[in-house]
């Protein structure tokens, strides 16, 4: 079945530094959709950005990610982290059985310190 791997459980960094969250996936579907969701404390997850186009950079709210089908990756990056970026970030995949919904990774908690 489909799977998503996020290698970092926790990322801590100082405000103003760049951040990159890793995401790789497995699916037999040749045209998957990849998503990044963000969940702030005591809130529900909300969509940050998504893509299905190979090698095209997608940007939103200062974050960007590029889907690379050759390496099955969809890493999330931001050039300068802000305190408000502290949250839980989930990478998710819509693969072959799209009616079933998204397959989520385990999530990466980001803590940004002043």
């Amino acid at each position, binding site marked *: 079945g489909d799977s998503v791997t996020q290698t970092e459980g926790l990322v801590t960094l100082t405000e103003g530094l760049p951040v990159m969250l890793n995401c790789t996936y497995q699916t037999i579907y040749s*045209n998957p*959709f990849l*998503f990044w*969701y963000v969940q702030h404390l005591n*809130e*529900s*997850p*909300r*969509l940050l950005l*998504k893509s*299905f186009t190979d090698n095209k950079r997608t940007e939103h709210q200062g974050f960007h990610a590029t889907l690379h089908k050759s390496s099955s990756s969809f890493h999330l990056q931001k050039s300068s982290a802000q305190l408000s970026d502290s949250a839980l970030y*989930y990478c*998710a995949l*819509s693969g072959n059985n*799209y*009616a*079933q*919904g*998204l*397959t*989520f*990774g*385990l*999530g990466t*908690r980001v803590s940004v310190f002043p």
Partner: protein
Amino acid sequence: AQTIHQWPVAEIKAVGSPLSLGCTIKGKSSPNLYWYWQATGGTLQQLFYSITVGQVESVVQLNLSASRPKDDQFILSTEKLLLSHSGFYLCAWSLEGGQNTLYFGAGTRLSVL
């Protein structure tokens, strides 16, 4: 605009007691509906999904059941709660089709004591 409403916002229940959580979507006809569970600080575990009234597919049951009695309503329930049921329950909807962006409700926080 589509709105998704979950009820109750929070529950404190005793082990062995019954539970019913609800979710209503307005402004969208025949959405796909989903229940997810999140343990404190944990990942999002999909429980059930439904693509039409009266039909529910189980992904992971966890001694829970789900029903879709109306096009815009999704219910999660159990007759006997376990301590392990504690967590954050999220209802979500999406459009049909491969793009499948999920839109989550505000969630229900459940504490089983």
